[in-house]
């Protein structure tokens, strides 16, 4: 029994079980849609979590990579005649390449300087998406042709629920794999103390760049799913507010915790939906909730709760 719960994939299987059962409680397509959005953002958050939680590098521009993936599946079929699935792959490759090129100089910066550099990078991408209207449709955005599987268009909120859930679970499983691998341990060591890790022979620059590229691919995949799911994409997919939202999801859910990314994403996607009843006071309450969670559950929701449970068991 112990072996089962401690198995590397136990967490992912548990989440998969919940995800499989959840639709029984969904009265309408609206719930499927909200859940699909949660999975999409959770996927991006998992990638960012690897960068922030595991390797300790703050990125305030991660939504830029989401934008790359999103516009890839929009521009590919519309302007270049490339089928959606291939555009998805190309988008991920482009994001990886961009991360590789930009990551080298950016990751030499530390702390808040790194934060501002990633912020600038994200803003640059958002500006390009807004201004290059011939390709991107400008500030009003462009429509995204439907994903075709074996010639049939994918439609329906419930179909997207399963697709995005699968995407998230695959991403989560791979992330767990990475965390438990030598590279993951090396990244954790870098997070703790980069100097000490380097002294021990860890090639810090290379490892940081690797996780930066991986997190970019996660974000791009999430962005592509987001665009296909919505059928329409606007430049604020890669905007500053979106980047901040992703960081908040990671931190609120728990840095370093894959399940935390899901919880954080769920919180920031579902909460605004429940708060609409408050009308004008919606934003005030949202701000209060964010502050409260951070003050009382300092390590993030999942780690704090897990810690509390473990303490009780001890």
């Amino acid at each position, binding site marked *: 029994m112990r072996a089962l719960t401690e198995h590397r994939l136990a967490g992912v299987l548990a989440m998969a079980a919940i995800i499989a059962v959840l639709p029984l409680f969904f*009265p309408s*397509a609206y719930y499927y849609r909200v859940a699909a959005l949660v999975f999409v953002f959770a996927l991006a958050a998992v990638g960012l979590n690897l960068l922030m939680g595991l390797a300790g590098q703050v990125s305030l521009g991660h939504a830029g990579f989401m934008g790359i993936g999103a516009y890839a599946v929009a521009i590919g079929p519309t302007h270049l005649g490339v089928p959606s699935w291939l555009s998805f792959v190309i988008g991920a490759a482009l994001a990886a390449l961009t991360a590789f090129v930009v990551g080298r100089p950016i990751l030499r910066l530390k702390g808040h300087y790194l934060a501002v550099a990633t912020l600038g990078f994200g803003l640059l991408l958002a500006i390009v998406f807004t201004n290059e209207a011939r390709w991107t449709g400008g*500030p*009003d955005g462009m429509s995204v042709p439907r994903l075709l599987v074996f010639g049939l268009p994918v439609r329906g909120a419930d179909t997207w629920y399963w697709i995005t859930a699968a995407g998230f679970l695959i991403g989560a499983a791979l992330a767990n794999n990475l965390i438990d691998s030598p590279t993951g341990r090396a990244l954790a060591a870098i997070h703790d103390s980069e100097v000490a890790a380097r002294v021990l022979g860890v090639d810090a620059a290379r490892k940081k760049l690797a996780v930066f590229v991986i997190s970019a691919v996660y974000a791009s995949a999430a962005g592509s799913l987001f665009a296909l799911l919505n059928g*329409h994409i606007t430049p604020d997919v890669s905007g500053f507010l979106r980047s901040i939202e992703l960081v908040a999801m990671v931190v609120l859910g728990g840095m370093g915790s894959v399940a935390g990314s899901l919880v954080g994403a769920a919180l920031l996607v579902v909460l605004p939906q*429940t708060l609409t009843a408050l009308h004008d006071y919606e934003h005030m309450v949202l701000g209060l909730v964010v502050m409260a969670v951070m003050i009382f559950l300092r390590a993030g929701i999942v780690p704090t709760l897990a810690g509390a449970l473990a303490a009780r068991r001890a």
Partner: protein
Amino acid sequence: MTLSTRLAAALAVGLATVVAAGETSAQVKLGAVLSVTGPASFLGDPEKRTLEMYVDEINAKGGINGQKLQLVVYDDSADANAARTFATRLIEEDKVAAMVGGTTTGATMAMMPLFEEAQIPLISLAGAIQIVEPVRKWVFKTPHTDKMACEKIFGDLKQRGLTTVALISGTDAFGKSMRDQCVAVAPKAGITIAHEESYGPRDSDMTPQLTNIKGKAGVQAVINPGFGQGPAIVTRNYRQLGITLPLYQSHGVASKQFIDLAGAAADGVRLPAAALLVADKLPDSDPQKPVVVGYTRTYQQKTGQPVSTFGGHAYDGLMIFAEAAKRAGSFDKAKVRDEIEKTKNFIGTGGVVNMSPTDHLGLDLSAFRMLEIKGGDWTLVQ
């Protein structure tokens, strides 16, 4: 209570709120996804207030077809993704009979396919011409298109004998869309666009861009497509730099607030706008006068704020829907849609509306009046 119990309780309350919000009731629901907060709140806030006050008024008079209307408003903060989620919610959970909304073009474009698929009428409050061209069966709109604004301005320029212009546009969706239309329409209208500049919608100083325009030889007039605070700052900067060429604003500034913010710099500025802005100055014979005067009085009385054409578009949308529902005698979506399409001689704040199967806007160029700002107030240019 322990921490985990507290969290569980909070989660339960949250879920309950969501479920409760979706309960159906006997009232007929009218949906509205508006950008009440965020970068387009200049448009969305008056729209929300207008819809709320006039739904109340309709209900006070007994409702439509004997049923009261329930307005369901969601705020998308100008985020197309949020708009789409709320649209799904309106269709699936709230089960609305129709929607008046979509403040921005991006939000409308994201929501349109859902309403087409669900076969529910959508009356959009956004400006771009793409919403009604090509015509979609279930989608209508009330605001004048940005193409019409360009045509109106170009017409006035030709009348004054001016043919070479410079554009300074906001990089927001409104400014960009109108700028694109002006560029497309200019050759046919005989207007040459000699120079273009742009500014961010939240920028605080446009003197570099205007300096470049000032330095460009041959420019005879300047057009500023944009909305919100940007045009007010452009206008102030324009006078600071001592530029005396005629300045044209767009219908995006359409509220007295622009004059208050731009101050004395606004004198001499012309813009195409709905008759709503000059309600009291219309001749008594003007068919729009009763409607616009009535709306102006009600809005200013209930909110204490000057009237804006964006609220006016929401009024038009609501009334077109209300009258169509009355003519249809029910809230059957297909019947209401047919009646909306048959709207003839509807006198709104934006103009006189005549819709048809090929025209889901129903306004022509005469719905726009050319206004000039003199002495801190709007005046009609004859």
